[in-house]
């Protein structure tokens, strides 16, 4: 029972990661793939932030009456990763837009069919 309570956050992070993973490999639509990729990404964020949490701790901002703080280091890493994540997702979306303009579709099987037929 204590295992389930203590590891619950990790399991949800893994579940989300696998949902994202499934979307990336199983979905044929390129936008859906990118959505899957961003779910995968947020699951990693969740994993890091969960590890940074300290029992009975508070946000790592100095204030009177608080002396237990959660670890600020994962927060820093994830804070920047979120902004970098959206920037790189935008590059992916821009590529999707160009693919649509060039091929007229963003479904993977149709793209492959077009490539195969000369």
């Amino acid at each position, binding site marked *: 029972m*204590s*295992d389930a*309570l203590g*590891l*619950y*956050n*990790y*399991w949800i992070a893994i*579940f*989300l*990661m*696998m*949902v994202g*993973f*499934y*979307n990336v*490999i*199983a*979905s*044929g*639509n390129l*936008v*859906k793939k990118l959505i899957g990729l961003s779910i995968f990404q*947020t699951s990693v*964020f*969740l994993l890091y*932030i*969960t*590890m*940074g949490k*300290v*029992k009975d*701790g*508070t*946000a790592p901002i*100095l204030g009177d009456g608080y002396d237990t*703080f*959660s*670890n*600020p*280091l*994962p*927060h*820093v890493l994830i*804070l920047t*990763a979120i*902004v*970098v994540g*959206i*920037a*790189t997702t*935008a*590059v992916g979306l*821009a590529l999707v*837009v160009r693919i*649509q*303009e060039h091929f007229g*579709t*963003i*479904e993977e099987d149709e793209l492959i069919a077009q490539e195969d037929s000369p």
Partner: protein
Amino acid sequence: MIHVVDMTLLAFLALVAIAITRMTNLFATSVLTGVYSLLMACIFTVLDAVDVAFTEAAVGAGISTVLFLATLSLTTQREKPQRSPNWKALCVALLTGGALVYGTFDMPHFGDPQAPVHQHVGPHYIGVSPTQIGVPNMVTSVLASYRGYDTLGETAVIFTACMAVLLLLQHEKRRDEQSAVEEKPDKEAMEHAMILRVQSKFFIPLILLFGLYVQFHGDFGPGGGFQAGVIFAAGIILYSLVNGLDKARQIIPPNVLHGLVAFGLLLYAGTGLASLFMDGNFLQYRALAEEATHGEHIGILLIELGVGVTVATVMTSMFFSFSGRRRS
């Protein structure tokens, strides 16, 4: 209590993720990702990561949703329906997931203060930063000072990503602009949505003001350049959604915008060089003033400003390039 809140929110998150997978309407899926990010931001708040929650709320629920919707308007709103779940992919995901769950049994439990994460530099930052840097928000001191190199690298990545988007989407821009003038100017503008226009007039100044507060109060409370930049960009994006891209481009000409993208990064690197020339190491802010903590304050203020300017203008110019493109 915290366990109950945490578990409920996480269960919701899992449900939303399943819904996202099952839906074939991409419009609904994009809106659901906004809900997903907002839930994630709530969870980050519960887990004490207030700075991260700020960023996730502004980026995930705000800007990324808008970018996905902009992409859909240029491509298609419906995914081709799939016949049945892809069993091969499902098996791979289940196997990987099972292996990872097996791995978690060795992990330290949630909130364990003895976990390896809390044994090395973490406690050092918590113990030393209040006197060494003199800034109450430890996330800011780690982000801007101890790990200043990292942050410089991340800012450079954002800058590069912006260049890539501009290169991909600015192409043939000229012709687009001419044809846009010939047709109707900005059909997307919500000129007739009265409620939206009045509300946005009221909200946009508040959003921009809040962005500035988050920028300059980041040393003392949750906030900083990344969050402020995203919030500021959200305000500008809201303006151009309601009033049309052409009006927004008149207020912030693309040339100025692109100049500012580079300016922010240069300000960051320039602060590093300044401390180098003032007998310190690269990004060692204590060299910037007589007193060490005073120097740190100046350095953090400057680089956070650089980050804020770059992030805000990168997000804005990305949005402009997506929405400036006409459907072919």
